[in-house]
């Protein structure tokens, strides 16, 4: 999640860059990642990459896929946040003699972060849910074998039922926490 945040922010800043090539590359990356299923991305990294590059362990593959996926979505959120900062702020920053880097660091990004906060929270919650997909690359073989009925014993109901409850507790708790934090952040921006 942290890596996804950092990469997402970096990509979003790059999408504001002056060079058209950089902007184009970021757009392609974001659109490709957002328009293909996460599951396919996970499979590609875990099963596809070994043919040409390296074999990554399941955990690293899953982490990499989730990070890249989260980064693309966070990039969109940050981009919207950066674009929501009014133009006058850029001009004011420049007129006080800040360099482009200082302007981004002290003026634009802090405001954009605040604007992006609720949507980032949403992405975090989705990420928790999407992490369930990573289990698949550890489980595919199991699933093929387990297609027979013996798997459908009484335990599966309880196990999956418990998992449902765990996810609900985590996700609902997280969204509650986020909405409290959101209120804090928004309150601060008004003050």
């Amino acid at each position, binding site marked *: 999640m942290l890596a996804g945040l950092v990469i997402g922010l970096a990509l979003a800043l790059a999408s504001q860059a002056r060079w058209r090539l950089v902007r184009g590359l970021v757009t392609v990356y974001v659109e490709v990642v957002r*328009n*293909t299923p996460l599951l396919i991305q996970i499979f590609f990294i875990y*099963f596809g990459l*070994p043919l*040409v590059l390296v074999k990554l362990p399941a955990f690293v593959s899953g982490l990499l896929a989730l990070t890249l996926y989260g980064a693309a979505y966070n990039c969109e959120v940050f981009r919207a946040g950066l674009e929501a900062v009014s133009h006058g702020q850029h001009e004011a920053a420049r007129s006080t003699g800040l360099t482009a880097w200082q302007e981004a660091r002290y003026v634009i990004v802090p405001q954009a972060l605040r604007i992006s906060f609720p949507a980032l929270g949403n992405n975090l919650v989705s990420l928790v849910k999407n992490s369930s997909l990573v289990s698949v690359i550890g489980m595919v073989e199991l699933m093929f074998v387990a297609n027979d009925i013996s798997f459908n014993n009484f335990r599966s*109901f309880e196990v999956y039922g418990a998992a449902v409850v765990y996810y609900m507790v985590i996700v*609902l708790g997280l969204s509650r926490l986020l909405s409290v934090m959101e209120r804090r952040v928004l309150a601060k921006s008004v003050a």
Partner: protein
Amino acid sequence: MQWSVVPASLPYLLQGVRATLLLSITVLVTGTALGALWGMLRVCPVPAIQRGMTALIEGVRSIPLLLQMFFIFFGLPALGIQMPVFLSAALAMTLWMAANFAEVIRGAIESIPHGQFEAASSTGLTYVQAMRSVIVPQALRRMLPPFVGLCTILIKDTSLASIIGVFELTRATQETIERTFRSFELYLAVAAMYFVICFALTSLSRILERRLGSPGRVVLVGPAVME
């Protein structure tokens, strides 16, 4: 690399595309219908119903779709409810779609200024009439972009159905890979197929957004939110 496997297995993969679209369209119809019902109940002015629907919608939304599928396909047989895979996947996705679409509806309806309600009721319209002829027509425009976004996510998420064994594009790919061992080329090709389908939809959404003008502030799940 051996790119020749891609054209060679194209007919089989296209069967997968067809099955993916079939599943998507099925869920689109059922999920949207159920979601519309849930959404209207969610915003109805009876507090008890509102609370119940909130619990239901938030409950469904907080569970990963994959887990819902597992629960329905592997878990429910313990209660004597056994369903074929396609039905299990379609049911799980319908619930998922309904919960998310209900939230889109709520977001759109709550974004209509309250004065509209007051104006409608002061002209003597009943709640249902006000909803039908004043609120919903305005809200529909605001729903459209996030709705198309949901459809994109829906198509991407049909790939999850492959895990419980539904034959669709991802499953077709896996079967082809088991035969040919060319996972790199095939996953890349299939990613491209998903991309074409989904990108067409997101582009459509962008065109619609421009055509409809900016409909005020749409606060809820735009296509930028991942799910």
